[in-house]
């Protein structure tokens, strides 16, 4: 029974990983950018939601509603100010510039908010610890269920948006072949800016859930980035449903690892990540792109 419970809790934990990986996966799928500042931006939005909630005395959920347009605007600025410039200089530069951004953000947050750990749990009353109790002593946290629902809705909603709306189609066209997209009348710059804005909205949601389910401090970002990155790679880069699966696999692996040994939590996750990666390379042979499930781009 404990085993089944661990798997169940792993699914809920994985839903959180899927949530935090969503923006990373989306941005990689559209622009082939691995945003190394992803985790730090999630923590930043955690602080933003906390500040708004404290200042106006509102619940974190309401504060998130206010934070969403702010983060969308930040996404637009991030694209125009940093990503677009670095993309022009080759594939390596976005890695360096977003890594630099992560360092700047982490230390600026340390400067501004200090080293104290913060949490949004105070603001959501008993939601942070309430649970539904099932048979056999299995308890399911209400916040965990909410996280799962939000993760599925967000990833599914994004997928629907990409498939069904004109902007979604334009984003997919730019992801495949930006030059040809321009030739059919799409403004790739604006599409990329919109996509980055959408990615940062998902990061704002993820940062809020990070703050509600746990604590964060200015240097929490990189750890979150690693979990998000592992979820993306396990699920297949750039695929949104794959990201959900990847998050859940990671969550289950971590929980089962912690059953084996107290230190097994992180090791279990990393191990599954490495096994999936090695298996992909083994099956794909020398084609590393298909190993990482990176779709090929049209060549000129």
């Amino acid at each position: 029974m404990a085993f089944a419970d661990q798997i169940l809790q792993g699914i809920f934990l994985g839903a959180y990983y899927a949530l935090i990986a969503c923006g990373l996966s989306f941005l990689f799928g559209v622009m082939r950018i691995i945003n190394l500042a992803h985790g730090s931006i999630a923590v930043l939005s955690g602080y933003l939601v906390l500040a708004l909630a404290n200042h106006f005395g509102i619940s974190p959920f309401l504060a998130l509603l206010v934070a969403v347009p702010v983060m969308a605007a930040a996404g637009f600025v991030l694209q125009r100010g940093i990503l677009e410039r670095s993309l022009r200089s080759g594939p390596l530069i976005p890695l360096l510039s977003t890594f630099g951004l992560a360092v700047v953000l982490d230390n600026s947050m340390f400067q501004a908010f200090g080293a104290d750990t913060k949490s949004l749990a105070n603001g959501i009353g008993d939601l942070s610890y309430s649970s539904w109790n099932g048979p056999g002593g299995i308890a399911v946290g209400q916040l965990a269920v909410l996280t799962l629902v939000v993760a599925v809705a967000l990833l599914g909603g994004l997928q629907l948006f990409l498939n069904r709306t004109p902007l979604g189609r334009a984003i997919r066209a730019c992801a495949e072949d930006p030059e040809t997209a321009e030739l059919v009348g799409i403004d790739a710059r604006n599409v990329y800016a919109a996509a980055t804005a959408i990615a940062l909205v998902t990061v704002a949601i993820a940062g809020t859930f990070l703050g509600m389910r746990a604590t964060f401090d200015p240097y929490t970002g990189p750890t979150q980035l690693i979990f998000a990155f592992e979820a993306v790679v396990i699920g297949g880069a750039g695929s949104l449903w794959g990201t959900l699966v990847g998050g859940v696999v990671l969550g289950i692996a971590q929980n089962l690892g912690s059953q084996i040994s107290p230190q097994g939590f992180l090791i279990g996750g990393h191990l599954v990540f490495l096994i999936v990666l090695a298996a992909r390379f083994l099956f794909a042979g020398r084609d590393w792109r298909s190993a990482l499930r990176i779709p090929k781009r049209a060549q000129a």
Partner: protein
Amino acid sequence: MSLLQVENLNARHGLLQAVRDVSLEAAEGEILALVGANGAGKTTLLRTIAGSHRATSGRVSFDGTELGAMRANRRVHLGIALVPEGRRLFGGMTVEENLKVAGAGGRTGRWTLTTVIEAFPMLKPHLKRRSGELSGGQQQAAAIGRALMSNPRVLLLDEVSLGLSPVAVSAVYESLQAVIAEGRTTIVLVEQDLARVLRLATRVACMLEGRVVLEGKASELSRDQVTEAYFGLRRGEGAGVH
């Protein structure tokens, strides 16, 4: 007055000058064919007109307005559409999505999803298939249809028959007749089949090593004249049969 005007255009790929001092015009409804060997600069010329490639000097004017450094997507809104070499469909998207994504940003007019499918009936059974799975001829039809979705006033066609079977080429050109029959769209096409060019085009320009070495009405040019210019047999004798 000509709808599309190219004056003293130069374009390069790094050190290689692909287009040298080219001047061309195309009036409304005209079909201008560009012929020339591989590497003569035809594709670069079309890409420069469409805004995908930056000119080093010279002017491209459309309907009296100089386009300058205007980006490709803005030129589509004015009414210039390019069917690129190699078709360049969005392979992961369905045929219908390929058409819709181009229709969203362009001009409105005669061409809609319905009329494009009418003009290219071979696409009808494949609308929901990923465009990457189609045959070459179907892909080419989809690529032309995609360009038409923005209701261009000038349609630039780059080697629509490249890599297609003769049957597929005929089918694609048959469908193009619908566009030609309408008579208002100006077409600039690059094509290797000289017989077809002389039958289809109203004017022919032959390029050699980046320059236009022969230009004239299709009805007044003989196959031999074009062939000579194509291979550069008359170099130095002065070009241009206007």
